[in-house]
């Protein structure tokens, strides 16, 4: 229960960190908030030779609006994002997702970029960014890359980042005008890993859905976009039946891994309910909701 021996580096700038990663990337790990990495070290499930601690790199932290987009420094603490009025007013899906992330003590230390780079399919922020069509900005000595969330996640704890690359920022486009949003999740206890969940962004003209993003939590080895559900929603009238049909489509292709906390079948059913509730809740939050969704509280069934 004590971490293995490693060489410790604490660069003060991104440049220094990239120099270190160029040399040690293959047998090293970046240490950001450490809320996932340090448990792995303590359990000896990970034993990197080098730890490159980026906590002293001030330029990696911060939240700002850039044009119509949100730019979040990778080292920004989750609690800072959670408390940001700018984010709550304009990117409320992220704020709602954060309310499900672990506990306050973890969010005080855990970073936004760290959660994304760790790529746990049951983690909230990766799914919220995926549903938001976010891009991840990564850097190495070889240059800077912008990777869209859709192309980022490969499988459980694995991304398309190269060993010498450092995540520097997350870039999130503005949601569609007047969009409705919802993040739903079920866990055994608040703060536990999710057994299933969904992140939904909807836009509509009148009753007709004009755009839909449906992200699934803990449904696959990566966070997942439910293309079938999105297809079912766009162009159709938003209704209870529509939400139900879309939720069915969302789980058609998935085969979540079962374990002691829930069988695959159970999780599939759970995710379907989470998607339906998220669609209903998001529809109820559309500007000028005349659909009656908000009146019945987004469906408690």
């Amino acid at each position: 229960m004590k971490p293995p021996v490693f060489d410790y580096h604490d660069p003060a700038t991104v440049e220094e960190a990239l120099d270190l990663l160029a040399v040690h990337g293959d047998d090293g790990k970046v240490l950001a908030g450490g809320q996932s990495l340090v448990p792995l070290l303590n359990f000896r499930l990970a034993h990197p030779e080098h730890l490159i601690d980026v906590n002293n790199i001030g330029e990696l932290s911060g939240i700002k609006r850039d044009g119509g987009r949100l730019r979040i420094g990778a080292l920004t603490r989750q609690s800072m994002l959670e408390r940001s009025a700018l984010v709550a007013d304009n990117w409320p899906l992220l704020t709602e997702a954060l309310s499900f992330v672990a506990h306050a003590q973890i969010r005080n230390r855990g970073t936004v970029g760290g959660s994304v780079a760790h790529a746990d399919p049951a983690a909230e922020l990766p799914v919220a960014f995926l549903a938001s069509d976010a891009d991840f900005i990564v850097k190495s000595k070889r240059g800077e890359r912008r990777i869209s969330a859709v192309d980022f996640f490969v499988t459980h704890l694995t991304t398309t980042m190269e060993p010498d690359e450092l995540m520097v920022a997350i870039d999130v486009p503005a949601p569609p005008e007047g969009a409705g949003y919802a993040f739903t999740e079920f866990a055994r206890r608040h703060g536990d890993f999710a057994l299933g969940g969904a992140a939904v962004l909807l836009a509509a003209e009148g009753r007709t859905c004009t755009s839909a993003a449906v992200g699934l939590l803990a449904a696959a080895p990566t966070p997942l976009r439910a293309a079938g559900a999105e297809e079912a929603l766009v162009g159709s009238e938003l209704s209870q039946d529509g939400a139900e049909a879309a939720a069915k489509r969302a789980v058609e292709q998935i085969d979540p891994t079962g374990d002691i906390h829930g069988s695959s079948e159970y999780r599939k059913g759970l995710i379907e309910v989470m998607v339906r509730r998220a669609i209903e809740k998001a529809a109820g939050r559309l500007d000028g909701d005349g659909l009656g969704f908000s009146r019945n509280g987004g469906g408690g069934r």
Partner: protein
Amino acid sequence: MSERRRVEIDINGETYGAEVEPRLLLSDFIRHEAGLTGTHVGCEHGVCGACTVQVDGDPVRSCLMFAVQAQGREVRTVEGMTDGLSEGELHPLQQAFHEKHGLQCGFCTPGFLMSLEPLMLDERDLTDQEIREALAGNLCRCTGYQNIVESVKLARERLRSGAESPAERE
């Protein structure tokens, strides 16, 4: 091999220096180097909350930080809660835990106190639900949490009404 580093860590306003391996957890530095054994170590992977301390004012898990990362930060542990109080006097939150039976075996208590102390400064009215969410990151196997919630409410009531300190009451 990993080189030892000299660290000087500010804990409760005092500086503790030592040569440490980078892999030394902050929790172990606090207990074994600084000798402050009020901080308890439970699961060592961030789940139980027993080792919670405050770093620059924010509650964090000291088992998920390395001592070298606390260099230049202000660490506060349960021992710091009675700084400036007279001998035997408790912090209002500790006093409330005492009166409301917010602890039984006491192993988890330092972590709860460190996690919940910031609520004492929160001027909003808090619902029971909000208090429960604030303590959700700490495990207690004895109390069933009800008396911890009561303790928080009592301490907040006293602090917010500017009530006399516990010592004066007796």
